């Protein structure tokens, strides 16, 4: 991620700030206040004081605070020890730290959109390994 990408399309909802409505965040959303409604972001970080009531949809979520109702994470979800999720969770990859609280239903999506492993590096120059490979054949 380059600098322009990092600096655009982000939102920070500070402590004691309450937002009601629908939020579309192209990049990262940091929620330390309260969101009541719907939030869609590429990356969602809910701080310890943060709280989302409604529907949250993201690629990657890092939850230190609270989420109520629904959370839809297409890549990885990390619930920290102070985190609390009550409701329906959809995830591909999940991690829960000791102390984290989950109350509700979990469904795992297929991990098909996950990045494929990098193709093996083709070495044009012959290496001593090739001789061993020949021996095996």
């Amino acid at each position: 991620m380059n600098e322009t990408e990092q600096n655009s399309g982000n939102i920070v909802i500070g402590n004691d700030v309450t937002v009601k409505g629908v939020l579309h965040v192209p990049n990262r959303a940091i929620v330390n206040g309260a969101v009541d409604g719907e939030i869609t972001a590429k990356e969602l970080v809910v701080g310890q004081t943060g709280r989302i009531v409604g529907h949250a949809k993201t690629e990657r979520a890092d939850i230190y605070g609270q989420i109520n109702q629904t959370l839809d994470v297409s890549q990885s979800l990390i619930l920290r020890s102070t985190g609390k999720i009550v409701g329906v969770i959809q995830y591909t990859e999940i991690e829960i730290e000791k102390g984290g609280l989950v109350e509700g239903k979990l469904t795992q999506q297929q991990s098909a959109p996950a990045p494929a492993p990098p193709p093996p590096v083709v070495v044009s120059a012959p290496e001593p390994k090739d001789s061993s490979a020949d021996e095996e054949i």
Partner: protein
Amino acid sequence: MFNTKSSNTPDTSKGMQSPSPFSSSASSPREDSPTTSASPSFGGYKPNMDLTSNSIKPSVISEEVVLTGNIKTPGALHIEGTVIGDLEVTSLVIGPTGTLQGNVNCSALNIRGKFKGASTCKELTISSSAQIDAKITYEEITLQRGAGLRGELHAANYVE
């Protein structure tokens, strides 16, 4: 002659008796001390002493064993095979090759294999190799990245 014999026999009997109570009294602490000191002196290896509150040896359902039925034990149970049934144990480990289908009531639940059913436990640990389709009520949860978990999770201490 009789005096000497009679004096000799008590001497020998004393000689025999005096070591024997000494040896027995010495041997009994010797027998006790290894048992008490041997279990901690295994070095790094403590055979499941921490898993159970009491020192009952863990029961193991080995790989490729299929057990259908209910199990109740105050100790630990380690499943590497397949168990279909309801369990009531203190500590349960479902190993990477293990499969459990049924209801579990336990204090510590460590899942590395497959689990389908329902469980009520205090300490829930789900490792990355686990595949779970269950309804679990827990007090404390740890879930490693990579684990597959479908179903419902309920926190025992959760208040709306």
